[in-house]
């Protein structure tokens, strides 16, 4: 349990878990405006197209331009958003005064130049995570965002995810009690390859398998999950170590398809992380183990598993439960009050929208309402630095100390 946050949180809420009524947990209404935010999409690969689909649900935003240096991807983007004007060069998009904001969904190693140029052009920017492919690039983007008048949000979606926000409220309110250890994984059986057509395009599209620019599974996937713990604990690992290898996809690649690593915090708590492209069992999750309960987060779902000797709280009588082999999990439901009043609590299991939607909704809300972004550049930088260092520790096969100066801006 976060030694800093629990006390201050308890003070704010006036007590422990009993002070948490279901009424506090409603989903926020989507942002509203008479003049929708005009968005330029930069990068319309798979993630960019998923972003397009979610932006379409937001009345307060309209995608007016799409940009991709790859002609086939640009055409695929146009097919999905025919009203948007296609542009091959992102600089032309940034020069356009009729665009309020950009969403950057290019390969990670290309973020730096685009993000810095977007900030300089006065555009609000949502930049996919990890923030960049090197520590230096992460810091350069953070430096550019510092003091800028425009909104800069990093796509570490957990911070906008209502289930994760709700679970964090429980975590900070003492229901987990003393933190014991942490675990996370992402398992997916996939080659991580994209068909390219020509050797040149194949190499360009498969940047995640290119040792020159890739930050591997720890950087590309781990960053998103490590950030959950940074956000919950309000602290960062002090040392990282791990190993990995190519366990299945022996197609000439050198980027590991399977990794396991330990991220150690100053109090001795260890986050064990495992990621593989060779097996899909149990997918993706993060778990925080405490002396009173464990909280398991599965992106669209969250559960709390209480210890037998943990105090019983009144709200539990309303709770929905799910059985996991020998354990019973209390489902964490984000808009429980409204659903409970309608007798539909069970239908509230899982998010009403994909997690990505909430990150974009928060971005648009920040632009319209002037509220701080859920994940500003410096938070994105710190999570990305941890991901990059973990990848480095795995590649070098040694323990790396996380120098505090690395987590600060220039």
């Amino acid at each position, binding site marked *: 349990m976060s030694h800093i946050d629990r006390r201050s949180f308890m003070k704010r809420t006036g007590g422990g878990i009993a002070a948490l009524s279901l009424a506090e947990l409603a989903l926020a209404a989507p942002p509203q405006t008479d003049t929708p935010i005009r968005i330029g999409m930069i990068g319309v690969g798979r993630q960019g197209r998923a972003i397009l689909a979610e932006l379409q*649900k937001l009345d307060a935003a309209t995608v007016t331009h799409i940009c991709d240096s790859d002609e086939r991807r640009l055409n695929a983007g146009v097919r999905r958003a025919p009203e948007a004007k296609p542009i091959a060069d992102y600089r032309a998009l940034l020069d356009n005064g009729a665009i309020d904001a950009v969403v950057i969904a290019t390969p990670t190693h290309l973020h730096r130049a685009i993000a810095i140029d977007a900030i300089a052009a006065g555009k609000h920017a949502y930049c996919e995570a990890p923030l960049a492919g090197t520590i230096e690039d992460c810091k350069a983007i953070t430096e550019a965002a510092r003091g800028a008048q425009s909104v800069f949000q990093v796509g570490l979606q957990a911070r906008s995810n209502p289930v994760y926000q709700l679970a964090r409220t429980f975590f900070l309110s003492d229901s987990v009690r003393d933190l014991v250890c942490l675990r996370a994984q992402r398992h997916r059986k996939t080659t991580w390859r994209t068909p390219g057509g020509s050797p040149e395009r194949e190499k360009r599209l498969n940047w995640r398998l290119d040792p020159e620019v890739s930050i591997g599974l720890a950087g590309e996937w781990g960053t998103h999950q490590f950030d959950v713990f940074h956000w919950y604990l309000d602290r960062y690992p002090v040392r990282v170590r791990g190993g990995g290898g190519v366990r299945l996809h022996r197609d000439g690649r050198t980027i590991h398809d399977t990794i396991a690593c330990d991220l150690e915090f100053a109090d001795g708590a260890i986050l064990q992380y495992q990621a593989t492209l060779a097996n899909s069992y149990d997918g993706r999750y993060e778990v925080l183990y405490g002396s009173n309960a464990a909280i398991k987060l599965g992106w669209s779902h969250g559960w709390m598993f209480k210890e037998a000797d943990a105090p019983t709280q009144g709200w539990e009588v309303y709770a929905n439960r799910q059985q996991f082999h020998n354990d019973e999990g209390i489902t964490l439901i984000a808009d429980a009050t409204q659903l409970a009043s309608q007798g539909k609590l069970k*239908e509230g299991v899982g998010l009403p929208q994909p997690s990505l939607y909430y990150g974009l909704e928060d971005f648009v809300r920040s632009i319209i309402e002037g509220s701080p972004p859920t994940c500003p550049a410096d938070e994105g930088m710190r999570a990305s630095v941890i991901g990059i260092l973990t990848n480095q520790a795995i590649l070098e096969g040694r323990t790396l100390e996380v120098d505090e100066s690395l987590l600060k801006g220039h």
Partner: protein
Amino acid sequence: MGTRFEVVVGGDDEVHLRTAAEAALDEIALWDERLSLFRRDSLLSHINRSAANQPVRLDPDTFALFAACRQVSLASQGAFDPTVAPLMTRFGLHPDRSDSIAEPLIGMQHVILDDSARSIQFTSTEVALDLGGIAKGHALDLAAACLRESNVSTALVHGGTSSIITIGSPPGCDGWPIRIAHIDEPFTVELRDAAMSISSPTGRMLDTEGESHGHIIDPRHGAPSRSASLAATIGPSARDADAWSTALLVLGTLPTALPAELTAMVFSGDRRLIDGPLVSTLLRMSDTPPMEPEPCLTSTVAPS
């Protein structure tokens, strides 16, 4: 879509083929996420929750899917109708859903598709959509497009063996041999650059109020369909084949409005041909099992 999808691709470059097959399966998984009635965060659930209150904007592919729903519903005089969702829930075909609409409005006239705004809206909160009769075909069409984009020239993709799309043919064959069973005289169809859909109420049986019935509900009468035992459609689009095989099973006959590009057959309760061509250039009668193609690669996915 609650079923297993499989891709078989042929060629020389296994790394490329696996990558291409994976992209096709990713496309299917994407549409499963978007069109599932059982995922709270799917686009379809979003539409079912929101479209009675305000129009929901759609991307061109999704709008084309709903436009196809409207077209087949109109041509089949309501035998195919995605507004059947509340009836499906009532007949226990949505076991994970506890919500119910007491007096549902059935019929695509309650669904407003605005072609210029590319949006969908319901006329009432008593409307809900289930795309079970067309989603697999839609996903297969787009998966096949992915494979073609990756220059794959030999492929078969199927969802639950009842919806199939093919590209080219396996080495040494004129087409992909597909056997249609569970009828009086089973036969083999050879598909080449074509799609096929089979609908049968016996694919999944349920007991309601002591009576056993299949999983196809006749939207016109609000009751399980008993007109036919099997309907098969073959045509260029898996989406259209899928929707029409459902419609034909409910109709029990081939309507004059059946699109000319579709070859279709309907079989009776005693498994005999009611309507449709016995053999066309696409069909080859056979008492023997079809040849098993030798795939260079098989990939699978089973979206839940």
